[in-house]
């Protein structure tokens, strides 16, 4: 009897515990960050030139170390942070050896502050500046998972290795569809450094900052790390538009990314049921040097080739993106027969051009935001509910009322006269 009771108690407890485990929030079970938590890698230049004493009277290296310590203290819990160095180990003159010198100092993951700080403290300004190589390495370090990826590159010199060109490397990494952003921080105001770093930033949709003061360095890195924690995880789904509508991919609702080279037209398809409205916006980003005048055209076309509606935009000068959009409501049908969704083709083209020296591949980054929503409700009258407003309205109504009253009165008198005379 007692055993039975104990068994029952145990079973009940087990059940409760199980239920508890099942319904408890997922955060309780995961001691580590979720697989889609944002990843950031700090890439620090430890080349010989970092010895220069020009950041608030201190060496660039000392300023960077201090900034790293502050950043490590301020890193949000959900961010997985890693550190990579370039030019930290090989002090010699041999170019080949110097240009292979990039090392993962601290693996991307939840930060152990003491360990990471200790690793940073060992760094001494040493070797070459292989930026392209370091970017490739950092991209590998950040691979895997669904979260956003960000590289923060801190350097004081342009790439001293020539090949691979870091700007091309950045564009190539951004085109891999991993939604990688590279933010660059230059510790010197040198022209070449500025051009190279801003080119890297532009190629990935990142930012370039010129650092002159120590506090500026740490606050900017902190801001970038925080930004990657704030950025929504919803990265666009990669899609490849076709050269003609008949072969175009069907899009659902949401954000998509694609690439389109100069002079190319890309087609996509959507299904819109009667009583629904198609919404489509497209933006083409500028990730390289382009000519100063440009434009974008989005068209909604029937599979037969008839244009339904278009959105276009043109611009000139410095820009990060050019965008346009359209909406196409499909009228509701009365009978039940023709309720099948209609196919609408979307054509995207842009008129960007670039100097001959600029690489054509990969194409310019395209972002599509498409949605299908409830149909609009065209007004029966321009004014709300056909209501009137204003002194003219009041005057007209008053005079009209007066005239009707007079008429009615005379009519009544005339009728009375007729009745009496009869």
């Amino acid at each position: 009897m007692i055993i039975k009771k104990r068994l029952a108690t145990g079973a009940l407890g087990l059940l409760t515990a199980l239920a508890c485990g099942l319904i408890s929030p997922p955060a309780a079970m995961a001691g580590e960050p979720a697989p889609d938590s944002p990843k950031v890698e700090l890439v620090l230049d430890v080349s010989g030139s970092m010895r220069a004493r020009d950041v608030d009277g201190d060496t660039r290296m000392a300023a960077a170390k201090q900034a790293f310590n502050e950043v490590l203290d301020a890193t949000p819990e959900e961010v997985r942070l890693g550190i990579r160095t370039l030019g930290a180990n090989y002090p010699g003159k041999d170019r080949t050896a110097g240009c292979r010198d990039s090392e993962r100092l601290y693996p991307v993951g939840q930060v152990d502050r003491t360990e990471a700080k200790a690793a940073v403290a060992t760094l001494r300004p040493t070797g070459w500046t292989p930026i392209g190589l370091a970017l490739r390495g950092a991209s590998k370090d950040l691979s895997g998972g669904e979260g956003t990826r960000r590289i923060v590159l801190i350097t004081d010199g342009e790439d001293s290795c020539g090949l691979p060109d870091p700007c091309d490397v950045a564009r190539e990494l951004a085109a891999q569809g991993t939604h990688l952003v590279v933010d660059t921080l230059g510790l010197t105001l040198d022209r070449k450094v500025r051009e190279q770093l801003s080119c890297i930033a532009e190629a990935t949709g990142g930012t370039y900052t010129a650092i002159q003061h120590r506090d500026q360095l740490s606050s900017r890195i902190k801001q970038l790390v925080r930004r990657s924690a704030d950025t929504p995880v919803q990265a666009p789904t990669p899609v490849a538009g076709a050269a003609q509508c008949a072969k175009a991919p069907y899009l659902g609702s949401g954000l998509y990314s694609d690439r389109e080279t100069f002079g190319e037209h890309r087609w996509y398809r959507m299904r819109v049921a009667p009583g629904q409205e198609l919404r489509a916006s497209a933006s083409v980003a500028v990730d390289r040097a382009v000519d100063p005048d440009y434009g974008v055209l989005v068209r909604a076309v029937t599979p037969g080739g008839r244009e339904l509606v278009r959105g276009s935009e043109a611009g000139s000068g410095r820009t990060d993106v050019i965008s346009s959009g359209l909406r196409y409501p499909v009228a509701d049908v009365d009978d039940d027969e023709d309720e099948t969704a209609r196919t609408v083709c979307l054509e995207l083209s842009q008129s960007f051009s670039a100097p001959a020296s600029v690489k054509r591949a990969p194409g310019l980054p395209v972002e599509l935001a498409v949605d299908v929503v409830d149909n609009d409700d065209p007004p029966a009258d321009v004014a709300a509910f056909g209501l009137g407003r204003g002194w003219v309205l009041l005057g007209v109504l008053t005079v009209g009322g007066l005239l009707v009253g007079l008429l009615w009165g005379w009519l009544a008198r005339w009728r009375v006269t007729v009745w009496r005379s009869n």
Partner: protein
Amino acid sequence: MRALRTLGAALTLCAAAWLTAAAPAAADGKDGTDGGSGKEAPTEAGTNFRTATEIQPGQRATAAASTGDYLYWVFPAAAGQVPGVEAELKLPDTSSRHGGATWQLDVYDGLRRHQPCASGTPARRAAQQDRTVTVSCTLRQVRSWSERWANDPLQGAYYVRLTVVDLPAQDLGLPIDAEVEASVRDAGGAHADGGDVTPLNPVLRAGTTPGTDSGTDSEPTGDASSDSADSADDEGGDVPHAVAEPEDDWGSGWWSDRWVWTVAGAALAALAGVGGYTLTRGPRAPGRPPIGTGSDI
């Protein structure tokens, strides 16, 4: 009894586990909303349409950035309102700059269509010695409906982009501070118009896997219909949108002061009608039928 007690203890433990687990999650959630639609003004700006920081009209949002960054914010505007944006930039030290620069404010609607500024100074050139520069843009009135071929502003999200468009190359990357404030002015009943559209408030979620054309025709149809059903359901659901719905709705409600004017007009017409009728009767003693006077004329 004992079983009950065990159950109670287990439940208490369970609740404790829940509370401890939920507490940081709740705190996270709070942190998250503070940056977005909370009461405090945001201190960061987004870097593209997708990551634009949400601001409320009347909030003064700030952001620290570098010269050359593209700063994005997004705010809601309802039908019948006239949205406007004003931004003030604190420029880098005059000693570190090498010349004048042109700063520009662009406003895009929820379909990412560029919206013209009806008034304001959307682009302004700052001379080298200037410490601050102010740019502003006031849009046309937001309509509650428009033809699909038109570029009229419609209710929904409005994106603000602030950047430098022309500068000496040496000044790229220098630190700046930006302050931006969106405002919405009610256009009043004179501009109350009819019709309605679903607000241009883009969804922020990854697209569903694109369907291939190689499959049978029925498959994409199924996908599309389920998607559209989803999106119809999601209108008030959990799908993240660019902006939250304003407290006073998206406008295009039934009320406008046109009702007052129209009803007042009707009352005046009725009074005038009674007055006109009375006039034809001429002066007479109250309560007496106007028989005699009528027959004498």
